[in-house]
């Protein structure tokens, strides 16, 4: 068989291996994205037989209109609260569980499972639990606060509080996943680096953390950063089940607005514009994170 013949055969194998997934990705992700992108410049309504080109009107509406701007700003605040809190908290928890694991594997496994629970549980069902916890009069949170003399709050119906209440639920939801990622990262740190650090004079946990743990977790942290950012940008279930974007759009966020405009009001064009903005935010954030951190976390 000639070399060219073999190359063709190898090429065919490559196509067979990567082809189906590539095709599915093109049809189910890239094509719809392009269509949505095109729709975002129209006034198309679902089910309508025609549409008009409206240029960037949908985008002007999103950023010019009070409601639209609200959704954008709320999403950014939500991400700004959830992303750093979740990462710092999960790192602390992971380091804690990791050191518990040094003397008791059972206890560490229990803690890991407990923290991972929110990830496997259906968020919609869990939201109901949170609704009960945060209920103004019956909720456990307010009762506990009352017992120590702090007045209860209307966690989900106070315009100033609702977004932060949702952010707390968001942190609770993402911490478990991040903890598992950080634990994997911690387990991969070679033990002898800690030995070396100890010999070199890093006696305290704090020194060892800065000399070994934190730098060695670099690649994990980058991954966690990207995952948490995209997950918190996508916040939807808690808003849909607990607040419906209210009160008065105080907890309206991009994906919920997208859903409302597209699937409740059938404004496919406007919904498309929201989708594109959402897409742009996530893509930019991810790219920036990779650009800034990739060189710093892989030590070459």
């Amino acid at each position, binding site marked *: 068989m000639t070399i060219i013949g073999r190359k063709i055969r190898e090429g065919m194998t490559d196509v067979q291996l990567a082809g189906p997934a590539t095709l599915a990705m093109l049809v189910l992700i890239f094509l719809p994205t392009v269509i949505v992108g095109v729709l975002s410049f129209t006034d198309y309504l679902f089910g309508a037989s025609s549409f008009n080109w409206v240029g960037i009107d949908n985008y002007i509406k999103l950023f010019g209109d009070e409601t639209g701007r609200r959704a954008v700003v709320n999403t950014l605040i939500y991400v700004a609260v959830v992303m750093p809190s979740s990462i710092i908290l999960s790192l602390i928890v992971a380091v804690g569980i990791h050191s518990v694991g040094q003397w008791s594997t059972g206890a560490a496994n229990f803690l890991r499972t407990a923290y991972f629970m929110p990830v496997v549980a259906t968020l919609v069902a869990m939201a109901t639990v949170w609704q009960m916890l945060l209920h103004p009069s019956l909720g456990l949170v307010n009762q506990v606060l009352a017992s120590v003399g702090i007045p209860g709050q209307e966690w989900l119906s106070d315009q100033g509080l609702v977004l932060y209440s949702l952010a707390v639920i968001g942190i609770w939801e993402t911490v478990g996943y991040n903890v598992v990622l950080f634990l994997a990262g911690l387990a991969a740190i070679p033990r002898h680096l800690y030995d070396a650090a100890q010999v070199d004079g*890093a006696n305290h946990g704090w020194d060892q953390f800065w*000399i070994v743990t934190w730098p060695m977790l670099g690649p994990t942290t980058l991954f966690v950063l990207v995952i948490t950012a995209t997950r918190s940008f996508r916040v939807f279930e808690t808003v849909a089940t607990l607040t419906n974007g209210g009160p008065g759009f105080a907890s309206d966020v991009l994906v919920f607005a997208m859903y409302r405009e597209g699937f409740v009001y059938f404004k496919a064009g406007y919904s498309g514009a929201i989708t594109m903005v959402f897409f742009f935010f996530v893509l930019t954030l991810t790219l920036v994170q990779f650009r800034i951190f990739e060189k710093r976390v892989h030590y070459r």
Partner: protein
Amino acid sequence: MIELENLGKTFGETRALIGVSLTMSEGSFTSLLGPSGCGKSTTLRLIAGLDQPTTGTVRINGRDVSGLSAAERNIAMVFQSYALYPHMTVRQNITLPLSMRTMTQLERTPFISRLLPSARAKMAENDKKARDTADMLEISDLLERKPSTLSGGQMQRVAVGRALVRDPVAFLLDEPLSNLDAKLRTQMRSEIVDLHKRTGRTFIYVTHDQAEAMSMSDRIAVFMAGRILQVATPRELFERPETREVAGFIGDRPINLIELASDNGELPAPFEKFAIGGKDIPARIVLGIRPETTTIDPRGALSGNVERLEYLGSEAIVTFRLSDKHVLRAALDASQRLPAEGERVGLRINLDAVHLFDAETGKRLRATLESRESASGNLESKVEA
């Protein structure tokens, strides 16, 4: 001086170390030698303060160091995997132990360190020491590189540099050469010996390679199954192994260990022409015959068929079958005529160099192997084993 007194270490059910006592004098080069899992690395970690012993004490210069951290003991360690910090340059790797010692937490904080005059002065001083060390190890041109861009030998030097830079009480080296290729290993061996001479510090060297231990150290402690079997100079260890295990472990070519029944010193065939001289000879004994102490001699007291011949250039390892049960491997000078496979030849063993062990306890016997025909003058001379 580093003294270990009755050190024991238990991990759960496993007893990793049992009653280890050892004294390493100031400026000595001691090797801890043994197969993997024998407790030598555990001992090193106990000396370094990375682990705490279950029983016993470690004393450095007469002072009990139990409870002191690795850094407080001021001991330097070179790890098998080098354990360089991958995110730091070579320069940062070497200066780290200095800055951890000389600078306060605040002075070490990034950004702030550049503002504090005291921190700047210390950093400059540390940097100078690091450069001097790098010069000495000939790695000055690597200072700005990251460990991942270095070769094994270069990483090894950086690891040594990091240990050397702060003038420690003792250097602990944990199999530092085992990740290097054979040629580089021989070169680094002599560099480490040079380093020992130059610094005059106490070196404790863990290895499973008896050739490394023999060629580098003043004294060797042979470990097996958590215990020290023998502590001696390389020469003593080779010439008077205290147990059959030590005899089996030491020597470039494995020693022949031949187990025989002995009836009041009388030996069965094919050793019927020999007898054991001495009192309280046990019923079963082990003869330890080094391959290089056997020569071909038509008038020899032993004879055997050549079963296999491995030609190695300067010498040849020949396996002789003495009887159904026993074989004897001999290292013969390859410049002479070598026997052909299948040929039957007479063999002469150097009685001086034969070791006798109790087959049951494995301990060295105070006894000698004698030739029963020595009176006729045609065979081996009798010397105390």
